[in-house]
């Protein structure tokens, strides 16, 4: 397989609050490829969104990236650069032209005090060498491309004058304003109704085909993953517990957590009037992070004491990895 555009290694992000340190992202490895979608899935609070912000280098204070590398392969194919180590000014040149973000709440993601045109052209003027008129023309083209009707008129409207679906389209136009190669979509369809959801996913797919966009799709919805993703990373408590191609994940899930997630998807094949299986318990509070495998208190396939004392290392090769003692890696001293 080709070299990844973006490759995250051992990413750690923690929030130092008054009550102690919270490790929101605790050693995440991810690879994103051109023209492919990486689905990042997990329950709320597992560190998906913080991972996205860490990649962009925009974690809110008091949070900060404490360790790890984020390798970005330059457009001309040179040697990858660790963007986590770049100075702030250089990071800003990456946000927008290289990596862009689409957010879950289209209403709240826009400022209500400026027209959408103002907010789109702002990014264009900042990163591209275009004058105001050309930037405006480009913004209208972008709106047209994402399927906003009458873009020349809409460009001067305020976000509160648009419908929810339209707003999310504009959001995508805004993200694509400077031709990024990687698009991070953080729950892009959660706030939308089912029909609009499907339209937005279609739009993302067609944009990916046209431009060879690499997409990181963050969601808690296994259905969206099945529909959109080529590769999947399942996250639990700040860590990717299982990664692999989408077929592998759905057909041969290896981690008990992945299996539990898949069981909890409602299907039309299910026997009527049976309860949908849910995952026992809830995500532990990050302060009381369990010792050993973080999933062991909820795990139905627990091996034994080793799960409570040791953290399972990643097992497997390149694009197919799992962190679970069921698949090996039990340390010698715990045998």
């Amino acid at each position, binding site marked *: 397989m080709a070299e990844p555009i973006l490759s995250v290694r051992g990413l750690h992000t923690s929030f130092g609050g008054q009550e102690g340190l919270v490790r929101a992202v605790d050693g995440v490895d991810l690879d994103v490829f051109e023209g492919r979608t990486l689905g990042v899935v997990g329950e709320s609070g597992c560190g998906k969104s913080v991972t996205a912000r860490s990649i962009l280098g925009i974690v809110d204070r008091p949070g900060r990236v404490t360790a790890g590398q984020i390798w970005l392969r330059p457009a001309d194919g040179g040697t990858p650069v660790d963007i986590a180590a770049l100075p702030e000014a250089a990071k800003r040149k990456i946000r927008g032209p290289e990596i*862009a973000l689409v957010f*879950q709440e289209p209403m709240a*993601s826009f*400022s209500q*005090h400026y027209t959408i045109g103002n907010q789109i052209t702002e990014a264009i003027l900042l990163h591209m060498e275009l004058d105001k008129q050309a930037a405006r023309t480009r913004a209208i083209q972008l709106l047209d491309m994402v399927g906003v009707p009458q873009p020349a008129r809409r460009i001067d409207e305020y976000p509160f004058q648009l419908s929810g679906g339209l707003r999310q389209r504009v959001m995508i136009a805004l993200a694509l304003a400077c031709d990024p190669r990687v698009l991070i979509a953080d729950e892009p369809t959660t706030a939308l109704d089912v029909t609009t959801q499907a339209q937005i996913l279609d739009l993302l797919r067609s944009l990916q085909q046209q431009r060879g966009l690499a997409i990181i799709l963050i969601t808690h919805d296994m259905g969206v993953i099945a529909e959109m993703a080529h590769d999947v990373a399942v996250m639990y408590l700040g860590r990717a517990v299982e990664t692999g191609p989408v077929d592998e994940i759905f057909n041969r899930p290896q981690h008990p957590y992945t299996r539990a997630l898949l069981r909890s998807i409602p299907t039309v094949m299910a026997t009527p009037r049976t309860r949908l299986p849910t995952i026992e318990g809830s995500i532990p509070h990050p302060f009381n992070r369990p010792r050993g495998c973080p999933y062991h208190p909820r795990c139905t396939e627990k091996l034994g004491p080793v799960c409570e004392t040791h953290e399972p290392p990643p097992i497997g090769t390149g694009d197919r990895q799992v962190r679970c003692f069921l698949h090996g890696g039990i340390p010698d001293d715990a045998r």
Partner: protein
Amino acid sequence: MIAFVVRRLVMGVFTIWLISVVSFVIIQLPPGDFVDSYIAQLAASGSVVSASEAVSMRELYGLGQPMYVQYGKWLSRVVTGDFGESMMWRRPVTEVIGDRLWLTLVLSFAALLLTWALALPIGIYSAVRQYSWGDYAFTLLGFIGIAVPNFLLALIIMYFSFRLFGANVGGLFSPAMQMEPWSLAKTWDLMKHLPLPATILALAGTAQLIRIMRANLLDELRKPYVVTARARGLPEWRVIVKYPVRAALNPFASNLAYLFPYLVSGSIIISIVLGLPTVGPLLVQALVAQDMFLAGTIVLLLGVMTVIGTFISDLVLMWVDPRIRHQMD
């Protein structure tokens, strides 16, 4: 937009009317009619008012007729600029008030500008650098501003400047300039004396507005549009100033509109402590001496001035907030 202006204008006129009624009530409140007290006062100082003079005065002010007729007569003379005569000074009220009204306005307005100039940047700083030493220091200063009534602050500053520098910090002019006619030099003299009383007057409001600005901006800073603005690669200061500060400006500006009456009120009381030639000391003197035409006129003029000031603040607010403009379209 026009509807907004018209509504504000109607409200303003109504408020002015209400103030005129209150002023009239104040004029009427002392027991007996004021011609009696006028005669008594003149008698105390040795002059005598003849019975026919008294009758013609009663006629002029409509005394003995129903209250609303008296009010009407008073009002119709007030709109022509005839506010009656001060008993204490034996001169027309307008003459007694003289420059004092404008100086009150200058002082209040200076305090208003100062409040803006201080509260906005400090509020932004405190929110962006939440829990920093600077934030704590400003929070402490803010609590002092809220807890120390401004007349007390004026007293304390007077005392310490007297103790430490042996200087009297009161007044709006140097003694030599006090009686001079207006000139460039006198204006400059005023400018030099203005900062201290304006700061004392502005402190309480500034403290409040810093808190409002800080709280609102903290709310705004957590909103997703800040993240998307950062994700666009904007420099941090531009992200903050263009988006969340812009949003936090609205509640800030609408609180500012209510600040003006508050400052006018405050100017009265600190003027007395600092001995400033505003209408404040005059009002208290007039009230103590029951010189009701003077007192009522000052209350009326202050009220009208406040309403006009608030109206202008409202217009500024409208200009700042695109949502008000758009709702009205």
